[in-house]
């Protein structure tokens, strides 16, 4: 839809490629462009008759807002949000399993929406509010959805659990009393190998009943 709007506003001229979006316009709407220049000035090169910012290939300074704290590092632009969290900031609740947006074990909240941290570049996540499973506890007390996971024995090996907990939290924030269709939609992006789905379903039901 965004593309359609852009196309109407910026009909391609003969100097542009046929992507439908002018590169200049694309940069204006791009999250990378919006967030990054605050932190660092990328190299700008000419490509297809337009200025294009290039990050890297070396390390670039980076600043993330994670669980209410500002974290700084110098990382290559190819580093994912997941690897930055885990390897640079030692925030390891989000797990690396498939590393390509298939299993949901790395689910975190970015501006309160569930996101696969393995498929977002760290530099893209700058300027956004990132929340990981570690931040769901409140003063040492488990969040209701976490407590419901405990009560319903919804973890076995536990490696998929943080991703599921975060996905459930995001779902319940949007749908406090989720329908089976909501659950189908919102939790279909997370996988478990031990077979804890029955417990997870019970946990969701427990919290939904309470209207949390």
């Amino acid at each position, binding site marked *: 839809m965004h593309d359609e709007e852009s196309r109407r506003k910026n009909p391609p001229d003969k100097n542009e490629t046929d992507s439908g979006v002018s590169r200049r316009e694309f940069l204006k709407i791009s999250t990378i462009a919006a967030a990054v220049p605050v932190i660092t000035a990328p190299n700008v090169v000419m490509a297809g008759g337009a200025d294009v910012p290039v990050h890297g290939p070396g390390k670039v300074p980076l600043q993330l807002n994670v669980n209410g704290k500002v974290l700084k590092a110098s990382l290559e632009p190819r580093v994912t949000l997941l*690897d930055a969290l885990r390897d640079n900031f030692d925030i390891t609740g989000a797990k690396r399993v498939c590393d390509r947006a298939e299993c949901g074990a790395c689910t975190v909240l970015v501006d309160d929406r569930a996101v696969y941290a393995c498929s977002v570049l760290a530099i893209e996540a700058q300027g956004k509010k990132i929340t990981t499973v570690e931040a*769901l506890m409140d003063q040492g007390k488990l969040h209701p959805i976490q407590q419901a996971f405990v009560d319903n024995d919804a*973890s*076995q090996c*536990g490696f998929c*659990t943080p991703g599921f907990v975060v996905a459930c939290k995001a779902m319940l924030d949007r749908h406090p009393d989720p329908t089976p269709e909501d659950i189908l939609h919102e939790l279909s992006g*997370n996988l478990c*190998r031990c077979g804890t789905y029955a417990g997870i379903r019970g946990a969701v039901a427990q919290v939904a009943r309470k209207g949390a």
Partner: protein
Amino acid sequence: MPDYKWPDAEHRTLIGKRTLRVDSPDKVSGQARYTYDVKRPGLLFGKMLRAPYAHCKVVSIDISAAEKMPGVKSIQIVQKAGSTIHWAGDEVVAVAAVDEATAEDAARAIQVQYEKLPHLVSDAEPPAGAGESQGPLSIDDLGDMLDNQVPERQIISMIQEYGISFTPTDQDVKEAKEEGVPASIIEAVQKATVHPEAAGKTTKSNYVKAASQTQADGEKAFAECDAVAEGLYGAPVITHCCMEAHGSTSEWTDADHLFVHMSTQNVSGIAGQMAEPLKVPAANIRVHQDHVGGGFGSKFGPDRWGIVTAELSKKADGKPVRMMLERDSELKVAGARPSAYARVKVGAKKDGTLVVWQSQSWGTGGPGGGGMPPIPYCFSIPNQRKEHTAIRNNIGPARAWRAPNHPQAAVLTMCALDDLAAQLKMDPYEFFLKNIELTRLPQVYKDEFPIAAELIGWKEKWRPRGMNLSGNIARGVGLSLHTWGGRGHASDCDLSIHPDGSVDIKMGTQDIGTGTRTCIAVVAADALGLRAEDIKLYIGDTLYPPSGGSGGSTTPGGVSSSTRRAVVDARDALLAKVAPALNAQAEDLEARDGRVQVKSDPSRSLTWKEACSKIGATPITAHGHNDQAAAKNKPDLTNSGVGGVQMAEVEVDIETGIVKVTKMVAVQDCGLIIDVRLAESSVMGAMIMGISYSLFEEKVMDPATGRMLNADMEFYRLAGLNDIPELKVHMMTGQGYDERGVIGLGEPPAVSPGAAISNAVANAIGVRVGVLPITPDKVLAAMNSAQKAGA
């Protein structure tokens, strides 16, 4: 004599009840640390360059470009030039660098030339007469088996069975030792019968006649049968797909001490497996693991990539090196359940009495071939004739997968028997029960069948095949039964009661998600009158007393028995110290509800804390041991041999071929249950895993390139939340069950789902989809061919 035996039902406070899993809060809050999460100071990242071909020779390796790259700290050649590679994805060269990206770049910069060799990745039915008998083993055969990671036990039994075609020299033995060949294999070679005449004649066929057995009259018995069913059944190779990949972090804390964090099911058994290849005493290797993200039978050894992390670390001044497998490698090389297929012919009398079984089976466990699954499964059919051909191919090595060989055997057997029941126009419920005396646990199954039938509503739901169609939805029900051993492994437990009232347990076991921590805590707390969370647990480290690997459902029996012995001794020592303060004899006291009290007069009591203050300056410590050999345990607190029944209900859309499991029930026995909630979770998990392998999972190999085509989690499909229906579990307890002692539970409920679901699908659509997974294309093809046959 201390009273170690399990308390009876009235005297159990926690055992057999429902306790919350003790490590759940850590897991749901992201605090649980897995090997993948361990970040040691100065950590280097390891990457493996893997062979792209299924069968090839390494011609040359050039690491010079990688060596010069900034940030690269060490490079280890795993298989040098001249080595033969037997599967795509096998390890060739490993790199360690300051960060992961650099390690990846370095691995990419290594130049390896290969000479491609012909490969076989299919496990299709062997051509007629293709199976060759295994002859005496040549030194190359042995080398290949070791390269192929054929299990030690299998190699030894082959050496013993077939002998060898060469006379081992002192030089051979010396070289074998240097290459890290296990001592038990060298010993077997030295003792083996030598057949010099067979030199140069040993079989190289991909097809090996692995078994041929006849029992009573395997042929003529068919003449006595009123009904005979024939069919082709099977289960393909599937992968373990642990959520946490295999891997480890190794570091040399000084020149000859190694510290390893490893994702493993076998904490106490790893050091011994790393010692020989690394030439360091096992005593100098410390292995640690807090949590492990799944194993399912695939994580018992350090693996080549585990050894490599130690070698890379050595070359990098002992700095910690982490190597966790990529997801594609995890699926390609780190776990595969052998396939099994069979053409089965089975016959019975009019009344359903089973008479005869005949099968030609085959399957692959990768380069090692593999043996015949235990067929016919559960039922000792009086007349049998069986032949099995093992296919040795280039798909990568097999690993134990939850109840090794049983799920396959259940599919081959229970589906054939279900087809026979259909021929006889019998309700399979009646048919299986009719023959139940042929099983080893008839009473258990007779107890379980009606419970399962009630839970799923079998009597209302079962109709003859293909007779329950409304619109384009066909409904059906199916059942299967299974068995397993599950005796406790060797386990040692140190337990201390401290003067301040705290209690700790040290044990070199691991909790692979099955609830081992909770099981230990429940057993200890039950005897001390405390809560499970009052017990401080130290597990997952070689610094603690050894406990067996978590495989074959041996952990609950092992850890509960060693804990029980330790806690009874410690409790009795405490009661002896407390007795004078309560003016009583130690044997008149009990620990209950957080107090130590006089049994006959609970008003004479001390709180737990007050009681422990009588201990003195140093804690009470006790050691408990469970022996693998039942005879050495007095009394024996664990046992072997369980039975279970599962029933599934499915809906099949006959236009799309999509199968949906709509309900599934399991009735399971596992002796004395330590915790009912966790037992139910184990069974539900097994059913869910079972739905997954019944409908979705298959390791798909490309015959042209020899590579796995679906080595990711999009195309290697696992069941999701929405594939899972209502599940019901009933655990058998009480008389006939509790007094048998503790028996493990991980394997048995994973056995039946494939057969139960396949039988339900056959009941729904009226024809058999013989080979798992039951995908829409197979459903439609089976219905089409049945229609053609009918037309």
